[in-house]
């Protein structure tokens, strides 16, 4: 990041900038998704206006919501295991922040540049399961316990298709570093035609579909929302939470939706880059400095596109049955993604 600023920034300054950037990268997607999709788009799809009072077209509704949640009493059930009950939302929030740390937004605009970035991202994304399981258990509520167990079963079942779909991209890019995956997509060519680069959505389309389905399930969005199924379990593991602790769960859910969409755009849609052939760039070092400013905008656009699809599916489809959920993961998605890996690997080695 010091290269962007052209002056040498001390380490604490760099870290502060990164943390502030991370904060924006968590809260901005969450706010945008909740207002744009959850409030407005869902309302329009259901032939109603949605929030209209707070600010023009209800644009200050989020501020009003935070004000509302702030005034709610912080309750814990009598029988609950209070310490870990109160800790659970923070575990989920930490998982979200750790996940955002791997995402690059430009050639120099990254928080961390792990050689095994993909691996790290997939690993920390599963910490949230722990928080959800803790929340479900500590509430001492039968609905919460069932919701927490359902969430755990669902998240581990769909973790595998997610990991295996990512593997196809790693095979094609021959790297686990997000920057190298982005460069591989933007310097690639489809059948010698290099004007578009080679976004892996074309060559890994099955992988992309599996990844997006698994993301839908990991985020527990409908049609995979059995852990918080309102008609069966009140609100699942979140039933006993009120006030800001509930809000933290809520923020973490939608921030994670945005971050998974960012990861999907890095893996399949070319990430922050434009096809390098447009500007005669050959490698990461040739990329102009202004990509650090344009890159985040490109990423934001792709994130909105993908979260739009996630929310569209959420508002359109009814819930699966619990047994169908596990059957779909183990009997359809996992064999399909293993076949996808096999075919990708054979083509990669043979061609």
């Amino acid at each position, binding site marked *: 990041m010091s290269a962007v600023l052209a002056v040498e920034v001390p380490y604490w300054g760099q870290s502060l900038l990164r943390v502030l950037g991370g904060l924006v990268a968590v809260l901005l997607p969450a706010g945008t998704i909740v207002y744009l999709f959850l409030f407005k788009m869902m309302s329009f799809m259901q032939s109603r206006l949605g929030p209209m009072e707070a600010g023009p077209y209800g644009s200050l509704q989020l501020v009003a919501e935070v004000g509302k949640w*702030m005034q709610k*009493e912080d309750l814990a059930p*009598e029988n609950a295991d209070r310490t870990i009950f109160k800790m659970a939302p923070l575990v989920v929030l930490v998982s979200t922040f750790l996940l955002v740390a791997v995402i690059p937004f430009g050639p120099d605009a990254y928080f961390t540049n792990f050689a095994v970035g993909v691996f790290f991202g997939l690993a920390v994304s599963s910490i949230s399961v722990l928080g959800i399981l803790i929340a479900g258990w500590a509430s001492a509520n039968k609905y919460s316990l069932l919701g927490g167990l359902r969430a755990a079963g669902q998240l581990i079942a769909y973790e595998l298709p997610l990991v*295996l779909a990512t593997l196809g991209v790693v095979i094609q890019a021959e790297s686990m570093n997000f920057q190298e995956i982005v460069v591989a997509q933007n310097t690639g060519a489809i059948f010698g035609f290099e004007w578009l680069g080679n976004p892996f959505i074309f060559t890994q389309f099955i992988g992309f579909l599996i990844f997006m389905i698994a993301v839908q399930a990991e985020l527990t969005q409908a049609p995979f929302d059995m852990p918080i199924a309102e008609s069966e379990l*009140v609100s699942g593991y979140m039933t006993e939470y009120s006030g800001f602790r509930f809000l933290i769960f809520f923020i973490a859910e939608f921030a994670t939706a945005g971050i998974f969409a960012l990861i999907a755009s890095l893996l399949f849609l070319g990430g922050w880059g434009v096809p390098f052939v447009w500007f005669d760039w050959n490698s990461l070092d040739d990329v102009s400095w202004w990509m650090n400013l344009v890159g985040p905008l490109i990423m934001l656009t792709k994130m909105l596109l993908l979260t739009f699809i996630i929310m569209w599916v959420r508002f359109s489809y009814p819930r699966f049955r619990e047994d169908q959920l596990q059957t779909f993961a183990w009997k359809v998605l*996992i064999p399909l993604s293993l076949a996808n890996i096999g075919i990708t690997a054979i083509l*990669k*080695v043979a061609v």
Partner: protein
Amino acid sequence: MSEFLRDYLTVIWFGAAALAIGAILLGAAALVRPSHPNFEKSIAYESGVDPVGIGWSQSQIRYYVFALLFVIFDVEAVFLFPWAANIERYGAFGLIVMVVFIVLLLDGLVYAWKRGLLRWV
């Protein structure tokens, strides 16, 4: 400090930032929110009916087999990633070895399938 370790330090800062944000939000709310605990409020909410027994009731754990299968396949993925990142270097030999590895594990999945373990009972 090496670049490698600095990246992990950044991750620690991110975790600390998450905890700080959570603490600030909850602390700010603590200044505003009311606190009038009473017995009715602290009963677990189970659709308005008073809960019978405690919340940690026994229920059938159907996830046991799935959790075991998950561990097996997740460890498989751990082995697949380093190969995938160096696939050209290992070439045809690596491909054959890994296909044998995947087929062996797939065999396990088919076995579990045939035994009816993947059925939700």
